[in-house]
């Protein structure tokens, strides 16, 4: 009896011992499978996109990138055209020119507004502020990153847009000097939807990411040159200009491009504040327009009314263009940041 118990205990311990020895291999195996999954998901997504977009790419051609049109065609016609073997409704014609322009315009405005503000705020948070102030304020900025984009859109369309349209925009539009180049700033402001409101909302959304990256970069600047500059009597601004900024210049470019990538991919807030047009470029800075992301989100559910499937295919093409632009910008940013961080090999830091 005793021998049986002892035998059972020994074999149990042998099992747990061998399991414990194997545990490392288990973790390693599971981890190896897990790390491949993002790559697999990426390949899957791109494959689906390319397969779905292929008919549209064949029919729409290169002119797709410069034309501005979104015509589902005569779904109610009794016949269907066949172009290069692809079934297309009569009169269907698509062009993403206005959407690409709108995406780039609104993101550019967002970046132009957000970058100086983010850098300034990063300075305010890292230099010369007592910790009990800079920590909560810094956390506040991080909180901004977590606010859902629908709420930004809601605020833009209910509060910010109308406020700016009634108080600020008419003042600007009426007082802009009569120079042709500045015609872009003249126009009726409607009830707040438009290019510049979208740019402002996007700017607020990308500020956290630029500020956070800039703060990290600032913390990597070695103390020695900065303190040396101060010892020589330089002011904060001169230290910033001659020591900090040159040191992090490439990194800030990277952070900017990162923010640009976020602005390009933003969907819901833009759909709510831009006016969601599909084939028009904003005629002036207050005008309504559309972006690639907003077009996809507003049109996808009704695109299936096109029984030939061509509209859904064109949306895949839009998605592909958006993905290429967005991923390209993102990769560029990370390349630049990683290069600059390595350059930040500090002198005199322990």
């Amino acid at each position, binding site marked *: 009896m005793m021998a049986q118990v002892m035998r059972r205990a020994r074999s149990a311990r042998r099992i747990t011992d061998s399991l414990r020895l194997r545990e490392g291999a288990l973790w390693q195996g599971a981890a190896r499978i897990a790390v491949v999954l993002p790559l697999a998901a990426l390949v899957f997504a791109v494959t689906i996109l390319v397969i779905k977009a292929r008919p549209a790419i064949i029919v729409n051609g290169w002119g797709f990138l410069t034309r501005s049109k979104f015509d589902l065609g005569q779904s109610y016609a009794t016949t269907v055209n066949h172009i290069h073997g692809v079934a297309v409704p009569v009169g269907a014609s698509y062009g993403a020119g206005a959407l690409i322009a709108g995406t780039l315009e609104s993101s550019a405005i967002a970046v132009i507004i957000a970058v100086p503000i983010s850098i300034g705020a990063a300075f305010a948070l890292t230099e010369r502020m007592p910790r009990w102030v800079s920590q909560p304020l810094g956390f506040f900025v991080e909180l901004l990153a*977590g606010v859902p984009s629908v709420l930004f859109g809601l605020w833009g369309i209910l509060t910010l847009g109308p406020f700016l349209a009634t108080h600020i925009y008419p003042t600007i539009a009426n007082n802009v000097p009569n120079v042709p180049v500045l015609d872009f700033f003249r126009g009726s402001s409607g009830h707040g939807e438009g290019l510049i409101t979208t740019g402002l909302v996007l700017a607020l959304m990308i500020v956290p990411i630029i500020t956070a990256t800039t703060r990290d970069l600032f913390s990597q600047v070695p103390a020695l040159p900065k303190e040396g500059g101060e010892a020589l009597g330089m002011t904060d601004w001169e230290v910033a200009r001659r020591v900090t900024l040159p040191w992090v210049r490439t990194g800030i470019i990277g952070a900017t491009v990162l923010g640009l990538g976020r602005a390009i*991919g933003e969907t819901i807030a833009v759909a709510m504040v831009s006016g969601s047009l599909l084939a028009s470029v904003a005629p002036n800075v207050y005008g309504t327009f559309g972006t690639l992301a907003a077009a996809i989100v507003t049109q996808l559910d009704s695109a299936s009314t096109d029984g030939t499937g061509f509209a859904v295919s064109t949306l895949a093409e839009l998605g592909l263009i958006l*993905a290429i632009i967005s991923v390209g910008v*993102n990769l560029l940013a990370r390349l630049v940041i990683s290069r600059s961080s390595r350059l930040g090999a500090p002198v005199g830091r322990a």
Partner: protein
Amino acid sequence: MSALPGTGRRRFIAIGFRVGTYLALSLIMGPVIWLVTGIISRAVPHFSWSVLTHPTAGESGGLENAIIGTLLLMLGVLVIAGGIGILAGLHLAEFAKPRKSGKESGHLLRTASDVLSGFPSIVLGYVGYVALVLGLHWNFSLLAAWIILSIMVIPYIAKSTETALRQVPTAYREGAEALGMPAGYALRKVTLKTALPGIVTGLLIALAIACGETAPLIYTAGAFADSPVSVSLTHHPVPYLTFLVYGFYTLPENASHYLAYDAGLILVVLVLLLLVSARLIVNRTQHYSEGRR
């Protein structure tokens, strides 16, 4: 504060710079406060606790089903993306062996993860719609939403796990080996345990991102505000808070607008809870870790 130069242009510029930086900070704070108070001031007058206990019915009602739906979505993301993301980060930090050339391995996989994090969310939503909802005939479903949200969020979790693991001092790992611990045991009891706060922070932030998403969910979980919550993985749309904000602010009834604001309020509270918890964890570990100020 550095002493200001006594006179002239330098003094002016120095003051201007300081004012400028604080102005920049206030240009961020101001709109944020405006936004949050705007949501709160619109939501609170019409908020009653019954909003939390009644489901949405047509154009009005409550938010019970949307809240449960959002939590259900987050739970799935926690399990799926959390599990996969942590393991992926683990691989990148611990198991990616340096190649003979001395360069770090795992470069392709890390780049793929970075690329995925820059992938526009609506395009992932499109892929989910076309491949899962329509292609596999799952219809609007919990599973499709879980998969797409997880794909979006795994890169963040992997990155934060990798960072957290890399910060574990080598001394800990060497000590574990010196004590004769088997590799897996040391991994679990020493490395992961030490990195846990960082990992959990990453998870909380990822959950905050997931609960705030709208565009990909519209095409995977569906666009039905008054759908009852069901645990069936497919063929049943899922209600969630962000759609209530997006879909209801355009409806004509005032009751619908109030629901939209209330949903916004609950979202703000939810995100606040997640991010504050994350920050508290970071502060506590800095408090107790080495090199404490």
